[in-house]
């Protein structure tokens, strides 16, 4: 059984990462996906946030929203040299997401594994199940 109500885990994949996350709502599930992706390559325990970066995303589907949200992490790494420690998210009236990443400088974070390159559409899932939302995404590393 997967518990508690929110969580994430990595599933075996030969070369890359498969990330699974779940939560009681769509945005809670997506938040877990953010945490799971960051934990796959960085140890953020005890790292203090140095600022926030706003999140404002819109997409044609929930799955595309998931991809867009995780891609923001990779974009911030490459362009701002910051690692998101966590994210606050709310559902927007237009079907998108609003919120903010809590970020820390990349130099303040200990690297734990290969830094992700991109979010793939292979095997992409975001579904509402009885009592929870669950997503699965393949990450190229």
């Amino acid at each position, binding site marked *: 059984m997967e518990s508690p109500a929110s969580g994430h885990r990595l599933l*075996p994949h030969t070369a890359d990462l498969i990330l699974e996350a779940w939560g009681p709502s769509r945005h809670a599930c997506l938040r877990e996906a953010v945490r799971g992706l960051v934990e796959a390559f960085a140890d953020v325990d005890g790292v203090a946030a140095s600022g926030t970066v706003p999140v404002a995303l819109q997409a044609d589907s929930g799955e595309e929203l998931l991809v867009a949200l995780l891609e923001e992490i990779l974009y911030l790494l*490459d362009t701002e040299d910051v*690692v998101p420690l966590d994210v606050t998210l709310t559902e927007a009236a237009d079907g998108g997401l609003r919120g903010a990443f809590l970020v820390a400088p990349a130099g303040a974070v*200990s690297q734990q*594994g290969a*830094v992700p390159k991109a979010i793939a559409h292979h095997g992409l899932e975001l579904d509402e199940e009885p009592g929870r939302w669950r997503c699965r995404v393949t990450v190229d590393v």
Partner: protein
Amino acid sequence: MAITVESLVQETPERWRIERRGDMRVPGIVFASRRLLPDLVSDRSIEQVANVATLPGIVVASYAMPDVHWGYGFPIGGVAATDIERGGVVSPGGVGFDISCGVRLLLAPMTAGELAPALPRLMDELAARIPRGLGRGAVWHPMGAAELREVLLGGSRYAVERGFGVPDDLVRCEDQGIVGDADPDAVGERALQRGLRQVGSLGSGNHFLEVQVVDAVSDPAVAARLGLEPGRVCVMIHCGSRGLGHQICTDHVKVMGSAMAQYGITVPDRQLACAPVTAPEGRAYLGAMAAAANYGRANRQLLTEATRDAFAAATGDRRIDLLYDVSHNLAKIERHTIDGAPRQLCVHRKGATLALPPGHPDLSGDLAEVGQPVLVPGSMGTASHVLVGVAGGGAFYSTCHGAGRVLSRHAARRKIGGRALRAELEAAGIAVRPGALAGLAEEAPFAYKDVDEVVDTCERAGLGRKVARLRPLGVVKG
């Protein structure tokens, strides 16, 4: 579609066939020894070979090299060619996120014995000068968007013109260091932003810079022509086009995913999104891909200069020559003879290396006599290989690109810690300079196939000829 070992028909000891079924337009051909085969069937790479065989315009077969493993959409180690005049498509997934990821091999003017006293200092100099891993910057920062555009158009050639290298560096580069038809206007703003601060950086994962020694020579005549004397020190650099390339793939998969319906295309995996080569979406991708390929070559050129600086500081000698630079993630427009007629094909190689034979018109100088060098990096701490293309080479003159993973990163980390792995490598005489110790374990040698078995299989299958085996002396990892 589900593929089992029973789906494979053995044609030769190193060649297996997946017969057409379902929507497959051509059969699948897997090059593997019987020893390598279980790894291919246990993951989903064979299923992905079959999925690629459904792409519009694909000709002859969907191929898998002996190092094939499970990717996303295309398998890693896959080759697929589409006939451009007959609706052939280009698929960004057939190139991969790391566009023009490739390998560069440098020759140092010394033997391992001569270098030995200076090796620890050299490794420290390299560790200080080679940006790698999480947020560690780059050797060079182009002066804004205008100069980045020059990199995208000019590749290694532009880097050399700016003083990062010597003209001889271009002679031994695939395409002389510059891919034509690059279109910076097809590169999106996010990709440009990601590319601004990474020219001259390794990245992480399986990317590395290794100081190596020529350990064994299989073809003394060709090895001598290439400068691979036994005992000579080499440097191998494995990296790609960094965030810029990753973003280009991401952006164009999205565009093609939306555009496929108007061309009547459906694919069994969303990461196989594609468009006809002649369609606006296909042309735009190829232009952006070429720009990323130039970025990748400039990236390896900048790391070459940093390597020269490290050698100068550690040994007083910066005479480092380029043996070759070749991509293993690229789509190329090539002419091949199909059913007796010359055809213009879009050949996707994702984790596969072009290996032109001696005498091929695209090779010049002494390479026309020996064939195109193929650089095959092994897993960390094991051997790497240099091959050359052979006449009659299969899969549109393609061969392997590395060892190929068999264990997930997670499983590798469970089996050994970074500190223990580093101690093992050091005990074996290999100096290690990781960007992050904790991530080192993901690249443990046991997570990969036996690279010797992979290249032996390539040779027996007629995909290339072994020239020399290289053994690591020191590893710089992201």
